[in-house]
């Protein structure tokens, strides 16, 4: 498992996607899975930057990623406000244009693109988001 720390800023999303993309590719995941793993990680990191660190200027996002036995695991840790993805209502994908809600889409994509998404608030003010996906 490799770990890197990023300043919680949108400008690092490129590097965040590259980090997980390289590990996924080296781990034998195909193009479609690599893209989807990058997208899910981007959505997770964007949510942390936008919501968990909404009121915190110098937040740090710790990203770990590794492949073992055909399973990629991605862990994002932040020390901002807690934000449980499972509490966010799913967007109504059948709603017409005027009723379509803007929020919740990132979390919906994360859940759809990955096999498992798990969120945990640790006592030491850490929020730990773990996502896994198995090679098909």
């Amino acid at each position: 498992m490799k770990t890197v720390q990023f300043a919680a800023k949108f400008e690092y999303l490129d590097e965040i996607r590259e980090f997980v993309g390289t590990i996924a590719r080296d781990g034998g995941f195909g193009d479609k899975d690599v893209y989807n793993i990058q997208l899910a990680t981007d959505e997770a990191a964007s949510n942390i930057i936008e919501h968990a660190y909404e009121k915190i200027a110098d937040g740090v996002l710790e990203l770990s990623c590794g492949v073992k036995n055909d399973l990629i695991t991605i862990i994002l840790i932040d020390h901002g406000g807690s934000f449980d993805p499972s509490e966010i209502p799913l967007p109504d994908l059948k709603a017409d244009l005027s009723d379509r809600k803007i929020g919740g889409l990132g979390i919906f994509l994360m859940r759809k693109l990955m096999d498992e998404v798990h969120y945990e608030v640790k006592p030491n003010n850490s929020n730990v988001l773990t996502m896994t996906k198995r090679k098909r």
Partner: protein
Amino acid sequence: MDITVQEFKHCDMITVKGRVDSATAPQLAQALESANDGGKYKLVVNMSDLEYMSSAGFRALLAAQRNCKRYNRGEVVLASVPERIREALELAGFTELFKTFDDPLQAVGHF
């Protein structure tokens, strides 16, 4: 990300290249808003050289579609949507909200 705008007789074509994420989506939103501010509501978003788009880009497209379709004055259509991006748009239920065309000029001809 790089954006160019081309004016046609009946619509504008906004070509987005590179990667659209939370860092760059505001520029895309701005380009779409500028078109609307200039009285242009019939828009083709040409994605032929687009590598990546997250939900931040989807939201910019949704906001533009709402604004363009208001009073029946126009719409946003998508052209040459790369496979990976189309799959994500489909997953998000966005393909029903936008007409899509395989070819940018075919999209221009729609207006």
